[in-house]
């Protein structure tokens, strides 16, 4: 047995998907948190710088009136007390620093600067530049810490979700393992076993129902096949036992030539019956394999029916039966096969028709591209339960009537097989007014009016 290409394990696939999805989700959340905090910190730094600028400008403009540089320095020093993260540089317009504290060197690596123009006492040039330097190292460190924390949380969270998912899927799929071992215990010899659907998840229920329905069908088909084998054996057994018996009896004593001749002739009749059954069985198995009919050129089905009626003429006249054909259709069919089906139907109708009645043949096109041919005869009602089984091999409504050597119970099965070979079906209908057996043939070409088809009358190819 070859192993078909399979998809990777459902568990592995699902847990990988869980991991990826939670990583994506957590990543988005963490990214947003980091971004908002970083933005907030940056804004706060800007705000602080702006506030300090206002303070510095106010201090300097107050100190300007005092005209006192040391006083300014003092004031600035006071202002900076307690602000380790802030430094101020004030320069005269010529670039000389008059105050510098906590300059860049003493602060951390990361800084934010804000430069602005300030008023200075007139003696040192009236205006100067001040620069505020804000040390953002602590904020940066905070952000870095936050970054690593969030990343770790996202990774660990994803792993946890993935692991949990794996466990959940495993738990969810556990009933499938039970199902597999249940299926493994199904015995080919016991066709009444079914799978137990209890304890199975809802999603698996349809599969189980279908599987059990399949087992039902198999059981029916198997039973039919067994019954069919028994039927074949039985049908062949009858003529065989007659043959064996008559040969044995004939050989027990000295017989006259005439007597032996009689025995051999009788044996020949039975052998022909067996040969006919075998030939029909082979035909049916041929049809069963789905071999399509070999269609010839389109021809009138009513003409075809007329030919077959001609063949049955003598027998129909003997039974005082008349035949009426209604309707017609022209289509390509396997003429030999359709003749055979019609012949079987006429034989069947003649066998069961009331003496002196009319056999009706109806040929109709159906809406779905088929042509239906029905043969109707007056006769006793066939009970409803027999109708679908009429086309089964060796099926007889009345087993007591099976002794007729000319009828071995395959005629209607052959009709159904010929219908199938033409993409159609066979059906039966019965009422007090009589019975009708119908078969359909699928038309493979667009419908042709019968007038356009050259008549292929019966006997056109006869040698005389």
């Amino acid at each position, binding site marked *: 047995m070859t192993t078909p290409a399979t998809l990777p394990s459902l568990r592995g696939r699902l847990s990988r998907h869980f991991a990826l999805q939670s990583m994506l989700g957590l990543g988005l959340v963490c990214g947003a948190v980091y971004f908002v905090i970083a933005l907030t910190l940056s804004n706060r730094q800007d705000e602080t710088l702006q506030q300090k600028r206002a303070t510095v400008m106010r201090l300097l403009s107050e100190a300007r009136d005092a005209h006192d540089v040391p006083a300014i320095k003092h004031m600035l020093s006071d202002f900076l007390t307690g602000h380790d993260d802030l430094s101020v540089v004030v320069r005269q317009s010529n670039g000389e620093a008059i105050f510098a504290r906590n300059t860049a060197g003493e602060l951390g690596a990361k800084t934010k600067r804000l430069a602005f123009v300030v008023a200075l006492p007139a003696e040192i040039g009236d205006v100067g530049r001040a620069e505020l330097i804000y040390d953002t190292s602590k904020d940066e460190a905070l952000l870095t810490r936050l970054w690593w924390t969030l990343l770790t949380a996202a990774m660990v969270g994803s792993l946890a979700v993935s692991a949990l998912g794996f466990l959940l899927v495993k738990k969810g799929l556990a009933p499938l393992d039970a199902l597999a071992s249940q299926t493994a215990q199904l015995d080919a010899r016991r066709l009444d076993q079914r799978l137990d659907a209890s304890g199975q998840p809802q999603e698996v229920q349809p599969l189980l129902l279908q599987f059990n329905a399949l087992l039902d069908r198999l059981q029916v088909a198997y039973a039919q096949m067994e019954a069919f084998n028994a039927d074949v054996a039985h049908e062949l057994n009858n003529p065989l036992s007659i043959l064996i018996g008559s040969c044995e009896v004939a050989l027990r004593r000295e017989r006259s030539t005439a007597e032996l001749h009689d025995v051999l002739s009788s044996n*020949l009749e039975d052998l022909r019956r067996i040969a006919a059954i075998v030939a029909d069985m082979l*035909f049916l198995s041929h049809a069963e394999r789905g071999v399509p009919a070999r269609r010839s050129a389109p021809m009138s089905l009513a003409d075809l029916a007329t030919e077959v009626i001609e063949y049955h*003429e*003598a*027998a129909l006249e003997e039974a005082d039966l008349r035949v009426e054909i209604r309707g017609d259709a022209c289509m390509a069919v396997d003429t*030999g096969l359709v003749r055979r089906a019609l012949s079987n139907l006429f*034989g069947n109708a003649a066998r069961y028709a009331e003496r002196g009645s009319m056999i009706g043949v109806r040929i109709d096109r159906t809406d779905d591209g088929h042509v239906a041919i029905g043969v109707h005869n007056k006769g006793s009602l066939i009970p409803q339960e027999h109708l679908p089984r009429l086309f089964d091999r060796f099926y007889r409504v009345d087993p007591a009537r099976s002794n007729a050597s000319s009828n071995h119970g*395959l005629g209607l099965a052959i009709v159904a097989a010929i219908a199938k070979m033409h993409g159609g079906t066979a059906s039966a209908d019965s009422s007090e007014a009589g019975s009708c057996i119908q078969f359909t043939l699928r038309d493979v070409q667009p419908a042709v009016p019968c007038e356009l088809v050259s008549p292929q009358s019966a006997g056109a190819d006869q040698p*005389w």
Partner: protein
Amino acid sequence: MQANTMKLLVVEDEPKAAAYLRKGLSEEGYVVEVAHSGVDGLHMASVNEYDLVILDWMLPGIDGLALLAALRHTRSVPVLMLTARGQIEDRVRGLQGGADDYLVKPFAFSELVARIQVLLRRASGSRNAAEATQFRVADLDVDLARRKATRGGQRLDLTPKEFSLLALLLRRQGHVLSRTEIAAQVWDMNFDSETNVVEVAVRRLRSKLDQPFERPLLHTVRGVGYVLEERAA
């Protein structure tokens, strides 16, 4: 018919089948030789002159179709192929492969004899000769051309199909015709029928042909078919 001078080769590996074919055909007046394998058959058919070869499809070693293909390189002898039932495709292949006719197993021996006669007649060219249209058997006179049949000077009132049936029996008088062959020849129904329509048709013909007269001409051969001939009382 010069059947006694005709020489047939039967290529058949099944000993019982070969034996009954040899016996039956010898009794029909043919000289019959049997080959039990395809290799022997091909050798004999290539070396000796035969008027007809009867060839089984299923042979050990070299099968009927291969034998036929090899034989056709050197010989144009008529070949009648025997095939198993259900090999419809095979029949077509067989005919394309150069067989002149085929017969599906199991066949009626009378059918085989009839086919052999047709093939031999065709080969000897006598088929083109005008076939008889007037027949006389005992006190029965039939004129096929004028579709007229009289017995003892009394006109027989036959339907067209009854006349066709009588014509077939007359052409092959003395030979037993099976129901299947009659159905095929008279009504063009080429299948084994479950129905007894041929029996009924023969019975009706007999009621017009034989019943009013003292000596029957149309005889039933049980298990085989029907034959028209004058029999000693």
